């Protein structure tokens, strides 16, 4: 069934959108990532104008994250205090990120920089997670005692200490705030929720237990992407409600299924799967940069820079 999107001004198959939303939603629920880093390139691929894809995707992530977070709240896997600190950082970061995005746009090379940041960050995050997960699995297989992550690093020597009961942490508020700002900047530039950076940052930098990481990440993503959606809707008029509804119907259902699948997987397995997926997307984008494209020319939406 073809459906015409009022803002994107293209006609696409409604079932294709429902399916894409569902597939990405399952992954979102499983891993606590918004799924934007998968969905945004997929939307480009089926012919949605990039500006509309980025803005609408932010709106869709709000829905799938909200659906996902409710399931985590029920199991008390959300650290609201930590989530709020991260969110405050995220909102500041998103505002800065939008400024940077517009600056790059005026310089004319925004596509390249977005793709490059995808490749660099997906590569680093995916590689680190993959390596770490393999090591963890080896250790548990060989039967050797799992070395407990060192909990007293530089993070613990900063002022403004706060108690994060859900995460069993007593650390300074500065690192989570900085992580939030950093992820917010990335999220605005790359048009994603930022979960794929947030999740490893929470595990490796903040030392949060894997159990609460997914729910807390989803919690703060809701607010950052909602803020991004409003910014896009009021400045660029690029949020397509029809596209968003189709994606989110598939997305929210998928997220529910994904959360339930995630329960049956071990943390290491979950991490290694997410790492492989992140690396796959990274590899695809890197190939696009390295191989000669079949069409060297492209049409910009409008004149000017």
């Amino acid at each position, binding site marked *: 069934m073809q459906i015409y999107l009022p803002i994107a001004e293209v*006609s696409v198959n409604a079932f294709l959108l429902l399916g894409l939303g569902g597939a990405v939603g399952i992954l979102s629920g499983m891993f606590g990532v918004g799924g934007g880093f998968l969905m945004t390139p997929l939307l480009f691929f089926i012919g949605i104008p990039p500006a509309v894809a980025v803005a609408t995707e932010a709106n869709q992530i709000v829905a799938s994250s*909200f659906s996902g977070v409710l399931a985590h709240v029920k199991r008390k896997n959300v650290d609201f205090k930590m989530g709020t600190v991260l969110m405050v950082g995220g909102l500041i970061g998103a505002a800065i990120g939008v400024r940077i995005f517009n600056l790059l746009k005026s310089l004319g090379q925004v596509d390249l920089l977005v793709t490059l940041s995808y490749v660099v960050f997906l590569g680093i995050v995916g590689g680190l997670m993959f390596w770490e997960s393999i090591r963890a699995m080896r250790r548990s297989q060989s039967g050797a005692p799992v070395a407990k992550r060192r909990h007293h690093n530089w993070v613990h020597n900063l002022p403004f200490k706060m108690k994060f009961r859900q995460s069993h942490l007593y650390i300074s508020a500065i690192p989570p705030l900085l992580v939030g700002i950093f992820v917010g900047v990335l999220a605005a530039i790359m048009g994603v929720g930022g979960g794929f950076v947030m999740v490893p940052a929470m595990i490796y930098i903040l030392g949060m237990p894997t159990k609460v990481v997914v729910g807390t990440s989803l919690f703060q993503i809701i607010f950052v992407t909602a803020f991004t*959606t409003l910014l896009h809707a009021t400045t660029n008029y690029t949020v397509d409600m029809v596209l968003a*509804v189709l994606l*989110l119907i598939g997305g929210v259902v998928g997220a529910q299924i994904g959360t339930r699948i995630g329960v049956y997987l071990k943390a290491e397995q979950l991490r290694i799967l997410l790492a492989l997926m992140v690396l796959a997307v990274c590899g695809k984008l890197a190939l696009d940069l390295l191989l000669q494209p079949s069409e060297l020319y492209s049409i910009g939406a409008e004149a000017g820079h």
Partner: protein
Amino acid sequence: MLRIFVLLLALVALPLRAEEIVAGLSQEHVDITTNFDGSEILVYGAVKRDAPLPAGDLDIIIAVSGPSSPLTVRRKDKRFGIWVNTESVELGSAPSFYAVATTRPLDDILSPEQDQTHRISVEQMIRSVGVEAPREDIRDALIRIRAKGDLYQELENTISISEDTLFRTDIALPANLTEGTYHTRMFILRDKQVVAQTDTVIDVRKVGLERFLYNLAHDLPLVYGLLSLFIAVAAGWGASTIFRYIK
């Protein structure tokens, strides 16, 4: 004296006006509804003659053009091992949709000078920012990319003429259509010269839900944004609740 002059002028002008087009469209407006999946328009007409049938071949050209806008065409090149946009050329205007239907190959029935005057071929429709013609590789790339999406169509030999009078053709408008006024021009040609021309318009408009959402997004962006968020949160909550009951 003046009267004789006017009469003479009228006599001279008469052969040129000997043939006229009476045109029709199967529909004068295209409504973009939610399930819009392209539209086919039947363009038909008749050649009206006051004088006997002139000698030579009769040819018809029908050109449908969508709203024009300026745009930028970029070219990629390999720099530091990766493919990046190295060059961008701004074009003054190019139609969002363009279809040319003809009775015979365009080059056989239209002289280059007449093409330039009447701007019939798609190449003539693409204008650069300045006075000069747009760069050929840029223009060709634009035509190639748009032709792939059925936005630029060269429909040679698709108009059928019967009895040297009646003609018709079908123009397929693709699903990814831009809103606006679509000009339909029809030309009668003899000896590669345009002897008569007529214009009609097709109105392409979003209607119903499409119209409502588009207007809301542009007129009340904050309301539209908040509504989008509300739908997102409601859908997320709804799915969560439904799944809890299923369990």
